């Protein structure tokens, strides 16, 4: 077990792997008909690759890497809108570092910056607000993205801007919500998920109740999981136990951080500032109903979408790019024709190659050699 000595508790890790072997055998799953568990969150994807968990699990368990990396699902049209706002002469455009390199149809924010737009990386929306305080003659726009984990920070920042009457600050709100996304995956005709490794930090905000429909209506288990490799292994044990018992329940493996009811203060701020959009366009997944939020009309003066009349143009991904199929778990990253040679972390074509939480970049970084071999195998099999 090559990586086992890296685990916090190698003895426990070994015991968990053994338990997984034992339980998996009981389910009757095979390499040809494996159990498919989807980790929804990019943080989990990163951990899984970093610790080589995929290779250590029995081959009757397949991990499907879901759409939970917010940077990875950003459509090109939104990046184009960002660039357009940033090109306004009196705008200081701010965002998280992760968003700077996502390719739009006319290049990334980083490219816009090198061409003279005032684009600045900030660690927190609070820093963007501070920039607005320090530059009263300029307009500071913060590009807010991410699921419910980062959504409260945008909401609280807007509430702060309102309380202080800071008028030269606005939010370009492109936050997305997890539940409709999971629902879309469950409704997809090529759905083949047997259980979910539930997002840890999103759940810290929303709690567990919103997932109930997954168990009740779709009869699939979901276990909210922490990010340590041991957490993920423990979660897989819990999923297998449910499957063997014929149960489909929402369980919480990560109770040391995730309270069952979520975070009331954060939820309160979200409800105040945001409302659901009718639909939101995702890279690779298309338009999903109610999957994004916008700012309530009461906060229109802080809404960059209104201030800058953004176009919200739909821009198709490059034809050869297969991010959508990878996101839905239909193909593995190395099966995309662009993987590696044309599309790599230095020159990302698709967004899944941009962030370390994107499954293509994770494969490239941690499983590069192996995935190249798999690609050759797949090509031979197809010919």
């Amino acid at each position: 077990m090559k990586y086992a000595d890296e685990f916090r508790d190698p003895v426990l890790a070994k015991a968990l792997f053994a338990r997984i072997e034992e339980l998996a055998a009981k389910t009757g799953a095979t390499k040809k008909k494996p159990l498919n568990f989807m980790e929804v969150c990019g943080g989990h994807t990163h951990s899984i690759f970093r610790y080589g968990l995929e290779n250590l699990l029995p081959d009757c368990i397949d991990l499907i890497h879901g759409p939970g990396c917010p940077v990875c699902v950003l459509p090109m049209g939104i990046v184009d809108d960002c660039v357009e706002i940033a090109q306004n002469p009196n705008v200081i455009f701010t965002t998280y570092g992760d968003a700077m390199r996502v390719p739009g149809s006319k290049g990334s924010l980083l490219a816009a910056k090198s061409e003279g737009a005032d684009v600045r990386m900030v660690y927190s929306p609070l820093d963007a607000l501070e920039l607005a305080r320090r530059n009263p003659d300029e307009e500071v726009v913060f590009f807010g993205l991410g699921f419910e984990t980062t959504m409260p920070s945008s909401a609280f920042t807007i509430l702060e801007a309102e309380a202080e009457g800071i008028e030269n600050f606005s939010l370009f709100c492109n936050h997305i919500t997890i539940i409709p996304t999971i629902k879309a995956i469950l409704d997809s005709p090529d759905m083949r998920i047997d259980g979910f490794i539930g997002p840890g930090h999103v759940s810290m905000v929303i709690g567990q109740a919103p997932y109930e429909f997954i168990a009740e209506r779709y009869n699939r288990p979901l276990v909210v999981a922490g990010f340590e490799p041991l957490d993920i292994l423990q979660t897989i044990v819990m999923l297998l136990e449910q499957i063997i018992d014929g149960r489909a329940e929402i369980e919480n493996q990560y109770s040391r951080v995730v309270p069952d009811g979520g975070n009331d203060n954060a939820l309160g701020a979200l409800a105040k500032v945001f409302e659901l959009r009718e639909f939101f366009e995702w890279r690779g997944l298309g338009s999903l109903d109610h999957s994004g939020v916008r700012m309530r009309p009461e906060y229109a003066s802080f809404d960059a979408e209104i201030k800058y009349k953004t176009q919200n143009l739909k821009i198709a991904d490059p034809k050869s790019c297969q991010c959508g199929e990878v996101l839905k778990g239909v193909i593995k990253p190395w099966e995309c024709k662009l993987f590696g040679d044309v599309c790599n972390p230095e020159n990302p074509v698709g967004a899944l190659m941009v962030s370390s939480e994107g499954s293509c970049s994770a494969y490239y970084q941690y499983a590069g050699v192996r995935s190249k071999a798999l690609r050759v195998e797949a090509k031979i099999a197809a010919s």
Partner: protein
Amino acid sequence: MCLGIPGKIVEITDETRKLAMVEISGVRRQVNVACILKEGEPLSSLIGEWSLIHVGFAMSRINEEEAAETLKVLIMLGEAQEEIRAMRESAVQL
């Protein structure tokens, strides 16, 4: 950006804006603590507490031991270094 990093609250810096200074792997940074404050609880009671810090906001209280373990894993994943770099390289600091 989504994994966050554990930090220890060492000082309350702004009562009205609910800001506190946290120490994250030796780096100091001001964060908003509105999310982890229980109703009626004075801000000062947060001093000495550990919390997961996400993009400048304390999001969930954790115990010290958890914090240490989480930090170890984040360092291994390279995430801790990323977070600290993002804090240091932020265009402006609160």
